[in-house]
């Protein structure tokens, strides 16, 4: 069967299932539990449950049972998790189920299925959940198996400034498991006023990847805006810097620098812009000069 035929068939099944307007909430939950039900039927059942759950909030308990059941295929459980996340947004009765929902999610953070595990961990991390933060930190520290890749773990911990992972982030910047994780760790140093010197060092280090240097420069904005502006001025006026960094520096200075300093720099910026072959630099130069030469 080719793709378009499959799509046509699938859409027809969904339409047929939708047309069964008499499908009760009970039936829909039964379909969601049925591991033999077709995908189209399950999708239709999920819509029925999503739209009508307020009629019988006790059905949320059934959904939580399915989510926790290791005998149900992981992709079905993942879809149930998506459904529960939708319901958690739009259903007032869901509030009463919140404790059970969070406890169920904590119970599946070690699930062998990667997607389900990541979705559960991500949902809990957004709730600033103590248990999942602890598990993510233990994974990064090597005290426990990692629930998600290191870069993802750092991102998820970044949802909560009170997760207090700054010493760990400093260590990961020095000794990262991979490049992506290092960049994520640098990003989180934006919460640490004690990280100014480390970030400046990264911004200035021409051996660093320009993207990493840009991340460090952005992180400085939050904790030391004056230092950031000084570094950006230096970058903007250094013709040996990579074009993307110079363009980023000029764009940021166009937004945030003070009129006097910008005016003082304008003629030099114009000269360097004229010499540059980068379209990005030329464009950023025009914006800068236009603002500060006026």
């Amino acid at each position: 069967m080719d793709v378009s035929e499959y799509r046509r068939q699938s859409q027809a099944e969904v339409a047929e299932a939708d047309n069964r307007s008499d499908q009760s909430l009970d039936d829909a939950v039964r379909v969601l539990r049925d591991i033999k039900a077709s995908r189209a039927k399950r999708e239709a059942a999920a819509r029925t449950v999503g739209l009508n759950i307020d009629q019988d909030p006790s059905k949320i308990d059934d959904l939580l049972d399915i989510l926790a059941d290791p005998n149900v295929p992981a992709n079905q459980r993942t879809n149930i998790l998506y459904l529960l996340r939708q319901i958690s947004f739009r259903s007032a009765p869901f509030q009463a189920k919140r404790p059970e929902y969070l406890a169920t999610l904590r119970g599946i953070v070690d699930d062998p299925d990667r997607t389900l595990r990541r979705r559960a961990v991500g949902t809990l991390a957004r709730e600033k959940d103590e248990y999942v933060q602890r598990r993510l930190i233990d994974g990064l520290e090597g005290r426990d198996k990692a629930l998600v890749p290191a870069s993802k773990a750092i991102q998820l911990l970044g949802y909560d400034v009170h997760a207090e992972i700054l010493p760990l982030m400093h260590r990961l910047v020095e000794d990262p498991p991979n490049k992506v994780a290092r960049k994520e760790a640098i990003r989180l140093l934006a919460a640490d006023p004690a990280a100014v010197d480390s970030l400046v060092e990264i911004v200035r280090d021409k051996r660093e990847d320009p993207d990493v240097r840009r991340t460090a420069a952005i992180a400085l904005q939050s904790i030391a805006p004056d230092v950031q502006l000084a570094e950006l001025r230096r970058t903007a006026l250094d013709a040996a810097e990579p074009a993307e960094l110079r363009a980023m520096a000029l764009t940021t200075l166009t937004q945030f620098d003070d009129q006097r300093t910008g005016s003082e720099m304008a003629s030099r910026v114009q000269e360097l812009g004229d010499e540059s072959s980068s379209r990005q630099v030329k464009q950023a130069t025009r914006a800068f000069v236009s603002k500060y030469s006026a």
Partner: protein
Amino acid sequence: MDHTTSESEVAALVDYVKRHPQHRGRLVELLPERHPLYRGRSSNAVVRLRGYVMAAFEQVGLPATVRRYVLDELQNGRHAYLVAAAAMAIRGLEEPTADVVPFLLSAIQNMKYSDDKVTFDTFPATWPAPSTTTALAEIIESLAWIGDHAQSARPALEALAADPYALSAETRMMLESLLAALHEPHACCHEPHRVSAADIQAPVHRVGEAIPSGIQMQDQDGRALLSQEFFGVVPTVVTFFYTRCDNPNKCSLTVTKLAEVQRRLRQDGVSTHVCTAAISYDSEYDLPLRLRAYGQNRGVQFSDEHRFLRVVCGFARLSEFFELGVNYGPGLVNRHRIELFVLDHRGRIAKAFTRLQWDIDDVLAHVRR
């Protein structure tokens, strides 16, 4: 015990004291926020430790000196683990008393849409947990333990029962049993005495001493000043906060109420005779722009007499003088209490309002004095 003590050692001490309640004083020592045990730990670690310690008072008995910590958590806490622990600790009182009821009702308001399952069976908690409870379940159990002394809570509990979305099925059953057991309040029943911040003033050891001079500060406009240039000239209301505080009952509410204090001072025509200051616990992060935005967003009007301050040099001396109830993790505040001080015209502490919510009228009354 200090910052080098492992969490498992603290948990072992708690378990030991549960078996030997005569040593409960060792747990009491761990409750002040300033205790070195909490230095350098994450906020989560502080929640775990304080929660496990506090819950133990249900078994070992709740001494009078600990009540204020428990009431603080019930009134202002937002973390289900700590609120559940505080509610459990109430059942360690020698006998049920009506004056804790308003605090349990505050805790219901704080938790009713953010409740969570918690467990005290293991430390730290592991999931799935064999037996769990929730903050709301523990609060309702404590109200049931208080029994007829909780009659004044009946209208609030009936309103809670009428909210179809606030409670799980289990907690709802507990609430219905409680309501069935609670008698209707008699006409002769009075509202319980409302314990306030003014009633539990922490001992102020610096009576008679003026605020230290030479502390370098910067205000919301970036202006540098020394402590003696602002404090000790006229009476001053001083409070502490930090912009990254994630508990809406603490810093955000404190600053909002401070704006109301300022408004009342203006209304009374004395806003140039009384100063107000909010000082950040998190000076390195709370740069002038952040201070200004945080205050303005909460109704504060700045002037020479009304400023937000960050300490550039000398915070330790300031913290020692006010005996601030704050501690720090690796990067920011990991725990603090609510604290407001009225200083006299010589910069001496005339009144401290700590831990519980302070009342605007109480503060203004002390300023007028």
